[in-house]
């Protein structure tokens, strides 16, 4: 996110926070401290070599060897007059790949008018209404049972569009009994010329992204949800074929490209007295819209997902042993778009790796606002070392 935009939004956040004549104000914070130890050979040697030459940060931020402070996240919720709600979320976080640089990142900032249970209208920056993980857990370690953020929903990898700037209508209807059918429909600025930037202030490509979600919640066990979501966008960017190649976007010889992005997500969540289960899968495709890309880049697919199973043992279910499996399958070279990174007029291509990882561990809640985790993970593909152990202390208040 551009620095000036960050500062502007941070100032807006503080101004709104102090001036709003709120009926109810609530401030929450989330944070986590990690200690990681990674060992063994890379899961796939060729990926490790490509990563060493052309990759960004190889590891999720909370699983480096040694101590790691991911950051602290502050969420301000204000219930305003006329059934309006404001939410601002600011994250003070370590920049990916940096050892000591912190950045201020505005995660969300929206105003919502609640007309009725069936109709709420939101405007601002919000989580794209895709799936379960992105809307509910995002990267807040305290809310997760396992320790590491799945690559699929890691904002700084940009595989799935995690955030949207625009408008959203959402609500729920009650088809019968305690069953609920929730929906969300959003229109936003969509993807930028590289997948990790959000288009906050202006979007000149003339298209908007559209996302729709349907979710059924049943009164079975403590929580039961099944949902499907889909998104469509058109992306205007530049063709960079070689890893590490840098192109000037103002140079007329730099080839433009236009892609149609279509994505689908399905999720199933069950939380009961003894067992919790989360499964989520994503299918995403990019199709050439101008007809100028070679066959290998004209029509590419991404498949990914995660499955997590945990138990609630001990007093009040505070001890949670868990297993999780994550997978992201990418096209060759991550396709024409997902490897692109840009800085002002320059655009380049980095190596984005597929991943396949299994995790097992235990989470323990010594207090309602404190969660400790110990996790072992094994990478089956990708450039990461095959083994990792992560200890995490996550809190919220």
């Amino acid at each position, binding site marked *: 996110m551009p620095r000036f935009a960050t500062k502007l939004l941070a100032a807006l956040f503080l101004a709104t926070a102090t001036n709003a004549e709120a009926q109810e104000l609530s401030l929450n914070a989330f944070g986590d401290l990690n200690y990681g130890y990674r060992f063994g050979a890379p899961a796939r040697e060729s990926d490790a070599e490509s990563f060493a030459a052309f990759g960004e940060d190889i590891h999720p931020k909370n699983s480096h060897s040694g101590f790691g402070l991911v950051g602290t996240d502050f969420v301000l919720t204000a219930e305003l007059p006329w059934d309006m709600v404001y939410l601002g979320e600011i994250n003070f976080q370590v920049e990916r790949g940096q050892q000591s640089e912190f950045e201020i990142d505005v995660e969300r900032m929206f105003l919502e008018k609640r007309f009725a249970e069936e109709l709420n209208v939101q405007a601002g920056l919000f989580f794209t209404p895709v799936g379960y993980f992105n809307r509910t857990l995002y990267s807040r370690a305290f809310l997760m049972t396992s320790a590491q953020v799945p690559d699929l929903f890691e904002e700084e990898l940009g595989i799935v569009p995690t955030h949207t700037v625009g408008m959203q209508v959402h609500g729920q209807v009650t088809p019968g009994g305690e069953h*609920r059918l929730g929906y969300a429909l959003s229109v936003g600025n969509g993807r930028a010329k590289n997948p990790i930037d959000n288009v906050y202030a202006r979007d000149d490509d003339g298209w908007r992204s559209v996302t729709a979600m349907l979710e059924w919640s049943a009164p079975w066990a403590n929580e039961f949800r099944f949902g499907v979501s889909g998104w469509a966008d058109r992306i205007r960017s530049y063709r960079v074929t070689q890893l590490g190649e840098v192109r000037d976007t103002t140079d007329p010889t730099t080839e433009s490209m236009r892609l149609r992005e279509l994505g689908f997500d399905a999720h199933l969540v069950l939380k009961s007295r003894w067992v919790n289960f989360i499964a989520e899968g994503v299918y995403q495709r990019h199709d050439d819209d101008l007809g100028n890309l070679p066959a290998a880049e004209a029509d590419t697919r991404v498949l990914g997902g995660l499955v997590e199973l945990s138990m609630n043992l001990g007093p009040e279910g*505070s001890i949670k042993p868990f297993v999780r499996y994550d997978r992201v399958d990418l096209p060759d070279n991550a396709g024409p778009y997902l490897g692109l990174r840009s800085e002002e007029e320059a655009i380049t291509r980095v190596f984005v790796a597929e991943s396949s990882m299994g995790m097992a561990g235990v989470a323990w809640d010594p207090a309602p606002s404190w969660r400790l985790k110990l996790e072992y993970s094994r990478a089956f593909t990708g450039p990461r070392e095959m083994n990792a152990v992560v200890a995490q202390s996550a809190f919220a208040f």
Partner: protein
Amino acid sequence: MMKRISRRLLAVSLVFGALTHESTARAGRQLAIVVNRGASTSSLTADAVKSYFLKQHKQWPSGEKVRPVQQEGAAHAVFLSKVLKMSSADYERYWLERKYSAAETPPKNVEDAEAVVKFVGAMNGAIGYVDVGQLDAKARDKLRVIHVVSY
């Protein structure tokens, strides 16, 4: 000999009587879920009460906004275990998640049953809970009991 047996019998019956009285008193306690007298709802299931307090449903069938109110102390613990069927830790975690993912805030918190009666009696759409023993005639004029749980 007879005197000793009588004394023992007396002691046993006193202990038994005290225990019986204690358990009767416990069994007799009830928590009432109350709404404003003007509400169109006359009864609710425990699941429906739960969904209103957890803000899974935020409107009464009439379209009126649901305004749940919770009180501190022993009645809250009973309400958590008997109606919401959650531990206090689960309840706290639930609201952290809801605040984060849906910008929802927990029910309004008041100090005691008297404050619940005052709030629910004055506010359309309000729903709260009080021990039945604390519902005097004045309170019953302003409130309607829509669900009762024994504890």
